[in-house]
């Protein structure tokens, strides 16, 4: 793995970061949500976007995915501004359940294969069968937890450049949390990067190599996990509790 990574980072491909965000601002009415956010995510990283509820994590995700337009600033995904093209490069897991009620599993699998050239149907089928979900099961009759897992499987079955996972472990039980983290780790490839937003850091911080602390619309800490641990002498969770003390 090291060799491939060296190759990629040394080669011309990596000259462009997977994600580059420059002085991004967004406000809703008079209420500023993001105030000059800037950071870079190189290839092959799992990055934690950490901050309390309502600090702008979801808005940042929406801006990167192209769902919302910024007031000012710039977002580049592999050097490209958000557009139809970047939508085919980003695999986005929103907080909401977006599955159509009328669909069966096979319908949503077809939809993903139809629209995303990078969708690995076999991988998705294998993961679904691990959960004993058949192609004929109806989405309507599924529990919220199962729907969330199905959505994660769909998102992680793409071979995207950038994965945006918005609160994938918010409000799930420990068993489901482990399943979700395993699924993310299992499908992570060095040629892509994953940005995961969460406000629950304990048990998760070991999967990040880089973390971004977002507070009141600004990035307050941006660094490598192990560097932060040795500099501050505490876990990311401990540092988080300190930075975001009420």
């Amino acid at each position: 793995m090291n060799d491939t990574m060296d190759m990629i980072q040394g080669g011309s491909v990596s000259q462009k970061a997977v994600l580059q965000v420059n002085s991004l601002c967004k406000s809703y009415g008079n209420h500023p949500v993001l105030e000059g956010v800037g950071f870079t995510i190189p290839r092959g990283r799992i990055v934690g976007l950490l901050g309390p509820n309502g600090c702008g994590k979801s808005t940042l995700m929406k801006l990167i995915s192209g769902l919302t337009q910024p007031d000012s600033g710039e977002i580049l995904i592999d050097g490209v501004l958000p557009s139809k093209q970047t939508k085919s490069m980003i695999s986005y897991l929103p907080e909401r359940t977006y599955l159509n009620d009328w669909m069966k599993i096979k319908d949503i699998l077809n939809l993903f294969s139809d629209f995303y050239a990078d969708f690995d149907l076999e991988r998705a089928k294998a993961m679904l069968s691990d959960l004993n979900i058949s192609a004929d099961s109806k989405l309507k009759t599924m529990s919220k937890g199962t729907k969330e897992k199905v959505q994660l499987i769909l998102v992680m079955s793409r071979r995207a450049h950038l994965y945006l996972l918005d609160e994938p472990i918010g409000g799930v039980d420990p068993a489901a949390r482990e399943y979700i983290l395993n699924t993310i780790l299992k499908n992570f490839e060095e040629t892509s990067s994953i940005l995961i937003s969460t406000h629950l850091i304990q048990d998760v911080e070991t999967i990040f190599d880089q973390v971004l602390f977002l507070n009141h619309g600004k990035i307050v800490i941006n660094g490598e996990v192990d560097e932060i641990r040795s500099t501050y002498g505490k876990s990311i969770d401990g540092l988080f509790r300190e930075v975001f003390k009420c």
Partner: protein
Amino acid sequence: MLRKMLKYDIKAMAQTFLPFYAVILIMSVLNSIFINFDWLYGIVGGSTILVGLFIALGVTTLVLIVTQFYKNVLGDQGYLTNTLPVSVDTIICSKLISAALWICLSGIVAMIVGFILLCSVSPLTFSDVWQAASSLFGQIFDAIFAVLGGEFQILFVLLWILLMVLIVLAAIANDILHFYCAMSCSQLRPFSKNRIAASFIAYIIINIPLSVLTGLVFSCMALVSDRFQNFFAGLAPETLFTVALFTVAAIFVAMDILLYLPTRYILKNKLNLE
């Protein structure tokens, strides 16, 4: 991409419409059997149910067109729809075409039901009704021929049919886009606090310029026709009819564009999903 998108949009509504059509057609056949056997209770009951079904079909069509767009584009499903690698135009057009398709199909089903009932009201057979219908249309065409005189050209008739189809489609699109535009307005900042109420109010507000516009254009036409009576008097009747059809079609298409552009702008630049 439009084809792929249409596939899913049509399928989404098929789940509701196809069973509905089946029930209505079965009911109308049953009703025509009751009529044939002169079974009064059956006729009364069957007709009542049929009327009820038609009202329900109308309401369902309306509700589905509205909710399909709202849920799939502006609701939670919008998180998927709006992050697919397709343009905003593809999304709107796909929704528009599938909605128009189901309206047309509902219309066709209504005609079939009318035909079935017409056949059973009188002791006529299907072929009798068919003959009566075709002779009726024949008479209408004869009347047109008579008005136009001998100079009648088949090309004109084809053009008129084309224009009339265009007008019907543009009018259907107008109604659908009116809903889409109103719902899209709920994404705008000051209105997004109560999205459903905002959509209702936007619908009514949009209606004002639309009806002013139609009224204005049609009255202008009347004015023009008065002023330039001589000019129009000089025209052959078929030309006049063609010009009239063209104008109506143009007005509807223009209104479609007027509703489409803001919808497109909002979905592209002002999307603000909850």
